[in-house]
């Protein structure tokens, strides 16, 4: 059984909690563990925060969140039409931040990569960024059982 949803919201920081809770609610029928659900919420929060802090840099723009389930896999994309990332490889480097004066940890992409089963990012300077993530629920339990 496959299910889909799309959510479009403004790049305001109060929408961070809204976005991650919507995805968590959408994922519930897939019976994630609390730990898996928390991983997904954190990864979504990181992606949405990047849109707000970096893509639109405090200005207002649209963030589009797409979710699709396939079996026990949740596929999430987070897209913006903001400034884009000039050097994606550098942005993916742990602890790298483009705004060193602002108390940013530079861990956002590292957390998305670590907490999700699959992760990729596409970006074009001046056009926007799209983050693709997949989480296979039950994968850790299966790995533990082996």
């Amino acid at each position, binding site marked *: 059984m496959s299910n889909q949803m799309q959510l479009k919201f403004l790049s305001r920081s109060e929408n*961070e909690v809204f976005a991650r809770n919507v995805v968590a609610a959408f994922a519930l029928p897939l019976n994630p563990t609390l730990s898996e659900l928390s991983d997904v919420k954190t990864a979504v929060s990181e992606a949405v925060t990047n849109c707000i802090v970096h893509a639109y840099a405090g200005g207002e723009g649209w963030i589009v969140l797409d979710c699709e389930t396939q079996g026990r896999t949740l596929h999430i994309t987070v897209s913006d039409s903001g400034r884009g990332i000039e050097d994606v490889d550098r942005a993916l480097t742990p602890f790298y931040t483009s705004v060193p004066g602002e*108390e940013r940890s530079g861990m956002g992409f590292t957390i998305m990569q670590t907490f999700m089963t699959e992760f990729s990012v596409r970006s074009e300077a001046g056009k926007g960024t799209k983050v693709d993530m997949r989480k296979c629920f039950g994968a850790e339990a299966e790995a533990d059982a082996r």
Partner: protein
Amino acid sequence: MQIQSCRRGDALYIYLSGELDEHSASQIRRAADEAIDAQAGVSRAVFDLAGVRFMDSTGIGFLMGRYRRLKKYGIAMYLENPDRNADKILTLSGIYALTPKQQGKV
């Protein structure tokens, strides 16, 4: 997001509760810094995370910012009672090398 602080002996305790993200971190940053500035004579500051139900990398940035402020005063910083998910992020970030986790009473 709520923040409360109190002094116990030579330590400043800062209790955080709620969801620590980019939105809430900006709301409690000043209160945390005021608590630190007001108790600049202590030798230790302990951030108790027992009430933190959610934390993303913005939480790491927030804690690092307070670590730097405390360091200027020569005050050591500790973290206690993170839940499993906060602990996962804190461990991944390597922040425990600077702000060790201490065993706290819940």
